[in-house]
């Protein structure tokens, strides 16, 4: 049993499952650090997944799909941004609306273009990279052979630097903590918040591209609740990119573990293992282990 758990299959599986969680939870971190709650991540992932397949289908190039997913994600997030920043509407409601909207629009275009309510045609996927020497080490190979895994790794590092080591990050965080003070110091609160939400759209859209391009097709409702898991990972990671990444990997590990235990025929109820990450999230939220404190002005529209 332990052999199965610590095997290479298990580790690569953990990484593969975690990719959309990592991207979307870091996206959520950007948005909420700027003070806008984004529960529309689920819908953005779905739209991103669909845009990726649509663009790949028309161009035959999966990189065009990746680009389209990012653009699609940004456009979906833009709706959320305009509604909640410009018009100061309730951010939760706007997020829910985005999720419902994504389910409808993807299905509608799916029927229009592919004449199916279930799945699209098969499209090209991203290439596998074989780098000599490096590909001899299995784990490194698993990361470097897949362009999106490598890209995610880079995004994690850059996001951390952006939020905590650059003037942009400082301004973004100040808008989420105390927008009045930021405004007095000449920071354009609305602009920073737009930036946070749009970055979250780009990242969650990219997470969607991973989902659909890895399957070589779009399937109705394929986001499967991943946006909500990403939100939990963001909270569990205490609104930091590295924390969110760690939490995403933990959630991914729990899922991979559950798959492995099932096929090993171990008689632990799989529901129990699947429950652990969420239980941990609740524990962190109720401040039993290291309190999770959201940015002070998170979810509050800024009135001058």
């Amino acid at each position, binding site marked *: 049993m332990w052999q199965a758990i610590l095997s290479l299959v298990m580790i690569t599986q953990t990484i*593969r499952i975690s990719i959309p969680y990592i991207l979307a939870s870091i996206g959520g971190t950007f948005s909420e650090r700027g003070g806008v709650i984004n529960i529309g991540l689920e819908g953005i992932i779905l739209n991103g997944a669909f845009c990726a397949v649509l663009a790949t289908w028309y161009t035959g190039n999966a990189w065009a799909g990746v680009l389209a997913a990012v653009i699609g994600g940004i456009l979906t997030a833009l709706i959320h941004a305009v509604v909640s920043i410009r018009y100061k509407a309730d951010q939760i409601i706007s997020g829910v609306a985005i999720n419902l909207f994504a389910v409808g629009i993807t299905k509608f275009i799916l029927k229009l273009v592919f004449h199916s309510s*279930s799945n699209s045609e098969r499209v090209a996927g991203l290439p596998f990279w074989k780098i000599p020497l490096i590909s001899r080490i299995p784990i490194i190979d698993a990361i470097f052979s897949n362009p999106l895994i490598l890209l995610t790794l880079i995004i994690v590092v850059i996001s951390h630097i952006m939020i905590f080591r650059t003037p942009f990050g400082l301004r973004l965080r100040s808008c989420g903590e105390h927008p009045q003070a930021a405004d007095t110091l000449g920071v354009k609160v609305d602009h920073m918040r737009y930036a946070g939400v749009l970055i979250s759209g780009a990242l969650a859209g990219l997470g969607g591209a991973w989902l659909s391009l890895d399957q070589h097709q779009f399937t109705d409702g394929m986001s499967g609740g991943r946006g909500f898991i990403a939100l939990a990972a963001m909270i569990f990671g205490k609104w930091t990119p590295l924390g969110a990444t760690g939490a995403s990997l933990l959630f991914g590990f729990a899922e991979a573990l559950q798959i492995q235990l099932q096929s090993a025929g171990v008689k632990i109820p799989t529901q129990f293992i699947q429950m652990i990450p969420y239980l941990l999230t609740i524990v962190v939220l109720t401040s039993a282990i290291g309190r999770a404190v959201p940015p002070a002005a998170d979810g509050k529209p800024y009135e001058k």
Partner: protein
Amino acid sequence: MKKRLIILVVVLAVMVGCAKRIEFAEATLRVGLVFDVGGRGDKSFNDSAYRGLEKAKEDLGIYYEYIEPGEGSDRESGLRMLANQKFDLIFGIGFMFSDDITHVAREFPDKKFACVDYTVQPGREIPPNLAALKFREEEGSYLVGAIAGLVTKTNKLGFVGGMDIPLIHKFESGYKAGVRRVNPKATILVGYAGVTGEAFKNPAKGKEIALSQYGQGVDIIYHASGSTGLGVFEAAREKKALAIGVDSDQYYEAPGFILTSMIKRVDNSVYNTIKETIAGQFKGGVHTFGLEEDGVGYVYDENNKDLIPGEVRKKVEELKAQIIKGEIGVPKE
């Protein structure tokens, strides 16, 4: 408030105005049908039901209308709407309808109802005007299990289920029994995608489960998991291994990697129910469709006959005959 009320009234009026006028005159029977989530074009269940409707229209001259409900729970209102109009026979497609259709059938005792994959529950009586159409999926699964058991080279086989519920356990147990019958040495790895309805539309999860099974030496995987199974096919392509489709012939989802498919003839059940109703022989209660009634089966045609050797085909046909005669009892769980 008043303004909202006016808007509501206007919307309702428009909806009523748009509702189609039904031509009763020439139709032999007026059939209404509410699809499962997914609706037409799901390349599976719903499409199969639709083929049954189409065939009945051409052969028997019925008039039909259908409703495709959204994600929410407007299944019941769909059934009720059709029952309120002048439809004679109303179908609900999928086990999700079980509760709703029972209620609506009680409210409209002079209308006839039929539900595909109806879940029979102890303590819930089936009204006399409701036909519960059930399939012996375990029989078809037994046969594809036998094919897998004979074709495997590694003696390791996989099963991927969607939602962990009794309906899917039938597929699993039939499959296992079929494998064991022809290949007692084979081991079978089992994975379920989840415990909610989402588990039927999570191809990424299906792919991971399949990759892990193939990684452990499995060479054929049977899935009963809706579009989650598309991920299983994707894993089969990646690992150059085989998979078995479900509900309808899924060969075209991954040509060359689909050993066979366990087919469920929802179209036949819909067609037969319509035919019986026209002949005045509609009967309420449970109707089951197995191998004998041509309600389930497996695919063997031009596409996959190179993957299934002649002696395998012969053996499986023998087993099929034995099941029909009742010499083999296939376990349901």
